[in-house]
C-alpha cells in the first residue's frame, strides 16, 4: 500500500504526450481508420444478427420475460379511453394476413360457437343465442402493432359475462381463440375478464360485416390488433400456453397495454 502511494503521480499532460509519441501520426491515422471500419462492420453485421440462432433464442427468452412483466404491470381496473361517435375513423381500415377478397364467408344460420377446455356449462352457442345476451357498445381506439391506429364502434356481449354464463373456469391461465380463417391467438385471463373485453357482434350499429369479422370477433381495446381475432368459431379455456399465429413467428405474446 505504501509503495503505491510513494510513486510519483502522473499528470494528464505527460500521459497524453507519451501516448502521442507511441502513436506516430501515420499509425494514429490507421488506428482511427480501423476503429471506424470496425464500427461500420459491427453496424452492418447487425442486420444479420437476428438470423443467428442463439441470438434469436435469447430475444425470444426476453420476450417471454416481457410477457410476465406486462402481466404484472396490467391493472384490470384501468380502462382504455373512449371517444365520441364523431371521432370514428371512416372508413375503418380492413387489415388481415390476406387480401380483402379472401375474407372467409361464414354462414350465420349454421354458425356454432364451440367452447372447449375448462368449461362446465353450455359448450355450443348459436348466433341467435349470443345476440339474445345483454349487449353493450364501445367507441375505442384499435392500435395495430405496425403503429397506426383507428377509432371504431363495436357492440356485443361483455366477454366476462359470457365466460361466467358458460361456466368457464376463470381461474385458468389462458383463453385461446380459433378463427374460421385458420387464424388463432390467445390471451391472458385478466385481459379476458377486463370490463372492456367484448364478444363483438356489431360494428357501428350494424351486424358485423365480413371484413370486420362476421359473425363474431373479440374486441379488446387493451390489446394490439393481432390479439383482436375475427371470425371466431371456437374458444378454449386452458392452462397450457396456446401461442398464436403471429406470436409463434415472433410477435410478443402479451401484445397489449
Amino acid at each position, binding site marked *: 500500500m505504501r509503495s503505491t502511494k510513494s510513486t510519483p503521480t502522473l499528470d494528464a499532460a505527460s500521459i497524453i504526450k507519451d501516448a502521442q509519441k507511441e502513436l506516430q501520426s501515420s499509425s494514429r491515422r490507421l488506428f482511427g481508420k480501423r476503429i471506424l471500419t470496425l464500427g461500420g462492420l459491427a453496424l452492418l453485421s447487425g442486420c444479420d444478427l437476428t438470423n443467428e440462432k442463439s441470438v434469436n433464442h435469447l430475444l425470444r427468452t426476453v*420476450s417471454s420475460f416481457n410477457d410476465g412483466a406486462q402481466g404484472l404491470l396490467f391493472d384490470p381496473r384501468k380502462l382504455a379511453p373512449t371517444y365520441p361517435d364523431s371521432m370514428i375513423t371512416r372508413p375503418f381500415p380492413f387489415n388481415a394476413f390476406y387480401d380483402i377478397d379472401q375474407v372467409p364467408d361464414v354462414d350465420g344460420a349454421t354458425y356454432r360457437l364451440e367452447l372447449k377446455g375448462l368449461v362446465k356449462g353450455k359448450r355450443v352457442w348459436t348466433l341467435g343465442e349470443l345476440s339474445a345476451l345483454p349487449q353493450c357498445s364501445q367507441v375505442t381506439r384499435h392500435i395495430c402493432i405496425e403503429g397506426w*391506429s383507428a377509432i371504431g364502434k363495436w357492440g356485443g356481449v361483455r366477454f366476462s359475462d359470457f365466460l361466467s354464463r358458460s361456466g368457464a373456469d376463470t381461474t385458468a391461465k389462458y383463453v385461446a381463440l380459433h378463427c374460421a380463417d385458420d387464424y388463432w391467438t390467445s390471451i391472458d385471463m385478466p385481459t379476458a375478464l377486463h370490463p372492456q373485453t367484448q364478444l363483438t357482434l356489431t360494428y357501428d350499429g350494424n351486424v358485423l360485416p365480413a371484413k370486420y369479422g362476421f359473425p363474431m370477433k373479440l374486441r379488446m381495446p387493451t390489446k394490439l390488433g393481432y390479439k383482436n381475432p375475427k371470425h371466431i368459431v371456437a374458444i378454449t379455456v386452458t392452462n397450457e400456453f396456446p401461442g398464436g399465429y403471429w406470436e409463434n413467428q*415472433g410477435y*410478443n405474446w402479451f401484445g397489449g*397495454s
Partner: protein
Amino acid sequence: MKSTTIHPVWVRVFHWINAVAVILMCMSGWQVYEASPIFSAIRFPASVTLGGWLGGALLWHFAIMWILAVNLGTYLALSICTGRLRRTLFPLTLRALITDLVAALRGKLGHSDLSQYNAVQKLAYLVVIVDIVLLILSGLTIWKPVQFPVLRMLMGGFDNARVVHFAAMSVLVGFFVIHVAMVALVPRSLLTMIRGR
C-alpha cells in the same frame, strides 16, 4: 492517479453501454417505423435497420429497452448522488453558452483540459440526457397507452406519442452525428472515454 482520472470507470461503462444500446434501439426502431411510416418522405433502407422484419425488430427493441433504461437510471442515480452531474454540467449560463458557441464556430474553442466541459458541451450533454428520458417516456406511452393515462395525456394521445418518439429519436441522431464529428476533431477525447484519463 485519482486526480488525473477525467471519467471515472462507472461513467465510461455507462457511456459505452448507452452508446451500443442507443444504436441498436435506433436501428430496430427504424425497422418498426417502416411498418407504418409517419412521414412518407422519411424512410429507412434495410441496410441501416435491425431485425429483418417488424416482429424481429420489436424483439430487439423490447429487449434492448431494459438495458437502455436500467443503464440510464443507474447513471442518473450515481451522477446525482456523487454530485458529478452538478459539478460537470453546471453552472450553465446563457452568456457562457453564447461566448463558447461563437468561439466554437470560429474554430477557436480550446480543448486543452478535457476534464472541463465548455458551455456548448454542457448543453449538448444535458440535452441528450433529457432527450433519452423523453424517448423512454414516449416509448412507454406507445407501449402502454392504457396503463399510463397521465403520460398519454402529456404526449398528446397515442398517435402523437409516436411523433414525439420520432422527434426525440431525430434529436438523438443529431447529437450522435455532432458528437462523433467532435470526437474525430479531438481524438484525445475518445482515449479519455476509454481509459479514463
